[in-house]
């Protein structure tokens, strides 16, 4: 009984934990890689994009944090759709400063400046830090503005990676760091998939067992000798 309770509790917790990040990821599933417009103001995290694109959109109401921008500069503030200049609201851990990332993963193998033009025509400068590996590819995918739906599916490796980490540079550009592998997502996914597989296995096993018995749930003609016209036992 205790074992069943533990199994059930684990499954329920795993499902809950799986749903929560999925809900968060659903915002990037809306079409914009980084969650869309920033219209909410400084304190807001990202919200679902209305246009389906990461770049461009409603940046007119957005004012950059004065302390982070060089005086007098007109650095674009749209950047990634959901990338606040001072705080990272992407999934995964926040990165207040690049040292948070480089302290953990080392110096990037390559750093290059890239400019992406949004739908509204404004371009944003990004400082792309490359570390190689799968995360690089995912980072570029996010920066392209939209990601395919299957990136949010458990069978795709991108599902197990965080969003890219960003950081607003003083010159107005945005430093981008590759997504990192999320062990928690993997473990929870394994728990959920394993739980579903266990349920299916149990169901199939019981179904097979029921096939051997009669519909009344009692022993089937285990005493019957089917090779003969009459059974040698009246009991079932």
């Amino acid at each position, binding site marked *: 009984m205790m074992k069943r309770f533990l199994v059930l509790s684990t499954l329920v917790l795993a499902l809950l934990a799986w749903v929560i990040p999925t809900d968060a990821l659903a915002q990037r599933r809306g079409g914009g890689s980084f969650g869309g417009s920033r219209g909410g103001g400084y304190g807001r995290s990202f919200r679902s994009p209305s246009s389906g694109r990461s770049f461009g959109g409603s940046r007119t109401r957005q004012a950059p944090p004065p302390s982070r921008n060089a005086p007098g500069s007109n650095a674009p503030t749209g950047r990634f759709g959901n990338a606040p200049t001072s705080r990272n609201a992407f999934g995964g851990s926040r990165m207040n400063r690049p040292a948070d990332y480089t302290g953990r993963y080392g110096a990037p193998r390559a750093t290059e400046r890239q400019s992406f033009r949004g739908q509204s025509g404004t371009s944003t400068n990004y400082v792309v830090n490359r570390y190689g590996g799968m995360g690089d590819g995912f980072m570029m995918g996010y920066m392209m503005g939209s990601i395919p739906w299957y990136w949010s599916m458990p069978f795709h490796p991108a599902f197990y990676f965080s969003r890219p980490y960003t950081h607003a540079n003083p010159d107005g550009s945005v430093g981008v760091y590759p997504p990192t592998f999320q062990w928690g997502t993997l473990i929870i996914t394994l728990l959920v998939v394993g739980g579903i597989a266990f349920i299916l296995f149990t169901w199939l096993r019981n179904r097979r067992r029921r096939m051997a018995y009669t519909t009344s749930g009692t022993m089937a003609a285990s005493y019957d000798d089917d090779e003969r016209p009459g059974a040698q036992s*009246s009991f079932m």
Partner: protein
Amino acid sequence: MPELSIEGNGRLERTAIYYNGQQLDKVREIFIHISEDGDFDALIMYVGSDGQQYTKNLFTDYLDSVQTEPPGFTSEEATSLQMLTVDSDGTLESTLLLRNNEEQEGVVRLYVHIKAPSVEEGNGLRSWFGGSKNIPERAEFAAEITYREIDGSLTTEGVF
């Protein structure tokens, strides 16, 4: 008058129940307890052709939807088996007991209890929440007759 016969060798796998000459199928349990003190219980539990489980009095009730099958034993096999026959209309006075077609006399008590075991329903999802729905039952096979000897002593014999 209904006639019930039980033919077998003492094992459930080779025990046939005949009701008025027809071999029954899907029988779950037979319970007969007849004594000269007035006890008269004769019950049969079976699964009918509609899948429902029935419990009937063997000699007074109509056996609804009872399932039958062709005789399973050949005449040669039958020679190595024991046959117990109860011929009755549900009253002690009219009950006739035969063993291998020989009428029995001086019977004090007849006790027959043959039951097929139930099967565990498995540890399905439902059992996680509601626990096991049925209580497992073991097979039962008891059949004995108590006679009163000429000297007044009682002797109990197994039928099979």
